[in-house]
């Protein structure tokens, strides 16, 4: 029965069911769903078309299952939200009813229609009909597919040894998996190790972190690689090959951390861990609780350059003979199944706020410097002192949102600074109750568990919260006291306050080297620069790349509790994959039509994954399915139609183009969007209700590299006014560099268009990331000028596109 249902061969046997979803009012608010369903019923092979409130609900799914069985449906179309959201849901429903899940197709009438055309009900309804027509045209040509199974290496790589990385590594290792923890600094601990106390419980930060750090250091399942960086990542979910550069410490593991070497070292430099408030030597340990506790020699500072040992003081001082200047940099090759990215964040540099005088006025410090000053193990032994005269100030001011929520810094809220200031103010009150404390804020955001209580406590203790940031800080040159000038916006008065010290509550920024990590793992970043999750609500710790997960501040600014929560979640998600031991790979890989292949090797040249072998004696190529990721750039390159992509065949895409251009083609834009960036960008535009013209018809391909010149030519031949090909930015391509081929093909097409006397503006190429919904909307808007300028004559002329080569 299942067999018969899932493999209908004859065209006449095709029985399509169409379900148009209202999504409450999300779709029905701007699209007449009943009308769309009635229209769908008139399309070829459609045996039934229904509209309902929530197709994704249990009842909605049950209805589909019932119809598959009772009405003998062998193809299903759901017109609702983005396939990136609910395709898996409906595919599962189909499978449960015995229908191969590759015989299902979605029409995205929410993100790509109702949400972006909120006020144009008629045009939106027409567009929805077109989208359904396109989906029905494609679904009729779909074939049942079987997925191949890939095994998963039960080892994980955690990048970043801050509290998130530590937690993720411990959770995975405790579950029984082997974990490599890579940290670029000499010690794990990250930002949390620098902080004095944590909010809202006022626990000593290093006291609660140090035990976890030492657990990592001695865990039998964790290999800790400090002073190391990830160089290269190859492979795919379950089977990553990672190259790690392990830089030498020049001190062997036998080091007892006695510190005698440091005492005799003649080189002195600021200690980065103390934000430059204390010194260290060239041979040093960043802080007392460092893991590993082994000392390290900073060869940038050490007198011994290259191979000449000029200064041997540390060597002589070390009783255990652990200093070895012959240690070499190693490159390790790791095989891992899953990867957790927990690379953390940087701290905003407030020098850009010239009016606050950071680096000009010694008594203006950052909140991170404050943490080191108030810390008993810090450079001042826990005394909050003014850097100018080493005296304890009688009054201090906190300035909030420095580098956050402002045009001159970053636009986003850094999440932790309000609570951090409240905690810091209470710490000062605890040690020096008479200190006068002012906190200048924009809004106080005390939203978490126990946060409001802490805020109340601070106010009760006499911390003055004043709304309105100072416009300027002026320093008394003699005393180094600081005058703050600004407006109290609640009382509408100008204030002019003198304090002994100012603490700038600085924001959190993406790591400077985020771009490298982004390239290595083909991640996406939000406009803020933090890594983007696969889905903001339902897959918040999954990266878009399979087998990669995110934790901590790398994903967005967050406090310790949230970082730990997210790290445990990421570990659990990675653990699920590794516990299963295998994963099915989507059946969207390339397929060879051997008879057509001439062995010209053009496909092999463009394949980013080396998944195509040439068999010279047979004058044919050979496709390696396990290495194929399904971008389809080979299929687009093949001049003999010898390669087709499963589930994205030429016939299916051409059918979608034909359906999109059936009515009023001369007013339409046919857009080819890659699944990862441009299509997701269009979804993003929908989610954010960015309105754009209704004449865009988006066709999804896995990569813009799939877009064969013949698709563009077909669209023009069918009379389309304009064509948009949109993919990921260079360097962001999910198929390494397949989008470079897109560029080359577009250039060839432009040349051809010019030769034929066509306006080349009618074909546009755009690089749109998953976060650039605005760019998609504006591209669509900008193309309207081209659309309206195209004459009937030109449309007629462009029908020649397909004729000549």
């Amino acid at each position, binding site marked *: 029965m299942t067999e018969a249902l899932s493999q209908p061969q004859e065209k006449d046997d095709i029985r399509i069911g169409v379900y148009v979803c209202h999504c409450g009012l999300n779709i029905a608010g701007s699209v007449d769903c009943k009308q769309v369903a009635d229209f769908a019923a008139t399309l070829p092979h459609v045996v039934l078309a229904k509209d309902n409130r929530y197709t994704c609900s249990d009842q909605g799914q049950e209805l589909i299952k019932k119809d598959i069985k009772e009405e003998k449906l062998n193809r299903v179309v759901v017109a609702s939200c983005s396939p990136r959201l609910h395709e898996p849901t409906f595919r599962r429903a189909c499978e449960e009813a015995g229908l191969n899940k590759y015989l299902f197709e979605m029409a995205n009438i929410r993100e790509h229609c109702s949400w972006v055309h909120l006020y144009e009900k008629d045009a939106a309804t027409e567009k929805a009909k077109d989208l359904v027509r396109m989906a029905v045209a494609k679904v009729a040509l779909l074939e049942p597919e079987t997925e191949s199974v890939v095994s998963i290496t039960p080892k994980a790589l955690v990048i970043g040894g801050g509290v998130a990385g530590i937690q993720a590594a411990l959770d995975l290792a405790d579950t029984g998996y082997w974990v490599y923890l890579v940290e670029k*600094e000499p010690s794990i601990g990250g930002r949390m190790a620098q902080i004095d106390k944590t909010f809202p419980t006022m626990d000593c930060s290093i006291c609660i972190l140090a035990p976890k750090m030492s657990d990592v250091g001695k865990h039998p399942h964790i290999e800790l690689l400090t002073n190391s960086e990830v160089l290269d990542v190859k492979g795919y979910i379950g089977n990553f090959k990672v190259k790690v550069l392990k830089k030498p410490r020049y001190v062997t593991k036998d080091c007892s951390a006695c510190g005698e070497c440091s005492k005799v070292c*003649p*080189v*002195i430099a*600021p*200690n*980065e*861990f*103390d*934000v*430059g*408030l*204390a*010194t260290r030597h060239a041979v040093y340990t960043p802080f007392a609780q460092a893991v590993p506790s082994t000392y390290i020699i*900073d060869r940038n500072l050490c*007198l*011994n*350059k290259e191979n*000449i040992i*000029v*200064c041997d*003081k540390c060597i002589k001082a070390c009783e255990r003979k652990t200093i070895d200047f012959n240690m070499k940099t190693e490159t390790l090759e790791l095989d891992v199944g899953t990867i957790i990215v927990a690379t953390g964040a*940087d*701290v905003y*540099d407030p*020098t850009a706020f010239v009016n606050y005088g950071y*680096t000009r006025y*010694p008594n203006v410090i950052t909140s991170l410097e404050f943490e080191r000053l108030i810390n008993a193990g810090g*450079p*001042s032994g826990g005394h909050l*002192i003014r*850097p100018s005269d*080493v005296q304890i100030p009688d009054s201090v001011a906190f300035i909030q949102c420095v580098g956050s929520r402002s045009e001159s810094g970053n636009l986003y809220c850094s999440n932790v600074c309000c609570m951090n200031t409240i905690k810091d103010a209470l710490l000062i009150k605890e040690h020096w109750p008479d200190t006068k404390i002012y906190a200048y804020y924009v809004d106080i955001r005390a939203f978490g568990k126990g946060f409001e209580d802490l805020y109340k406590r601070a106010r009760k203790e006499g911390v003055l919260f004043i709304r309105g940031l100072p416009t300027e800080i002026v320093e008394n040159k003699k005393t180094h006291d600081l005058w703050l000038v600004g407006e109290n916006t609640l009382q509408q008065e100008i204030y002019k306050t003198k304090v002994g010290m100012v603490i700038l509550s600085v924001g959190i920024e993406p790591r*400077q080297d985020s771009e490298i990590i982004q390239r290595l793992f083909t991640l996406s970043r939000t406009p803020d620069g933090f890594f983007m999750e696969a889905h903001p609500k339902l897959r918040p710790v999954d990266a878009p790349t399979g087998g990669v997960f995110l934790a901590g501040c790398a994903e967005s600014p967050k406090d310790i509790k949230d970082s730990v929560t997210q790290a445990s979640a990421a570990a659990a998600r990675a653990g699920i994959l590794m516990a299963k031991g295998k994963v099915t790979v989507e059946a969207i890989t390339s397929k060879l039509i051997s008879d057509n292949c001439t062995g010209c090797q053009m496909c092999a040249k463009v394949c980013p994954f080396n998944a195509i072998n040439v068999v010279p004696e047979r004058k044919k190529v050979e496709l390696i399915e396990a290495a194929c990721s399904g971008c389809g750039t080979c299929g687009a390159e093949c001049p003999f139609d010898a390669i087709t992509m499963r589930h994205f065949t030429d016939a299916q895409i051409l059918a979608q183009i034909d359906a999109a251009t059936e009515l009023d083609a001369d007013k339409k834009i046919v857009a080819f969007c890659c699944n990862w960036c441009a299509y997701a960008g269009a979804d993003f535009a929908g989610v954010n209700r960015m309105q754009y013209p209704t004449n865009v018809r988006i066709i999804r391909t896995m990569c813009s590299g799939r877009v064969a010149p013949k698709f563009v030519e077909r669209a023009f031949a069918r009379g389309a006014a304009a064509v948009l090909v949109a993919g990921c930015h260079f360097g962001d391509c999910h198929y390494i560099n397949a989008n470079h081929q897109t560029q080359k093909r577009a250039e060839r097409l432009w040349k051809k268009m010019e030769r034929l006397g066509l306006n080349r503006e009618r074909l546009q190429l755009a690089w749109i990331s998953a976060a650039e919904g605005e760019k998609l909307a504006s591209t669509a808007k900008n193309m309207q000028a081209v659309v309206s300028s195209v004459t009937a004559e030109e449309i007629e002329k462009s029908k020649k596109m397909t004729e000549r080569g």
Partner: protein
Amino acid sequence: MVPVRTWRRPLDADKVKPPQAEIHIIRDRCKGCGFCIEFCPKDVLEESNEINERGVRPPKVVDESRCALCGFCSAVCPDFAIFTKEKNAKKKENQ
């Protein structure tokens, strides 16, 4: 290393001052091989303009405060013409 700007004078800068050096050059022993100048990790020495008894230019001190007292100059000098001493050590002796 940690990407932080370290612009402040560290609070303990005075306490951890490295020992100050006193560099002694016995000019007429020098044969001008230049090893001390070449190998000094802090570039404390350079060739002087005067000519010594042996007819070569001995080294001269550019900035004594830079010297880290590693003692490599005296170790490589083939003619025992240069040595370093700690300044405070001498003072302590006097007291």
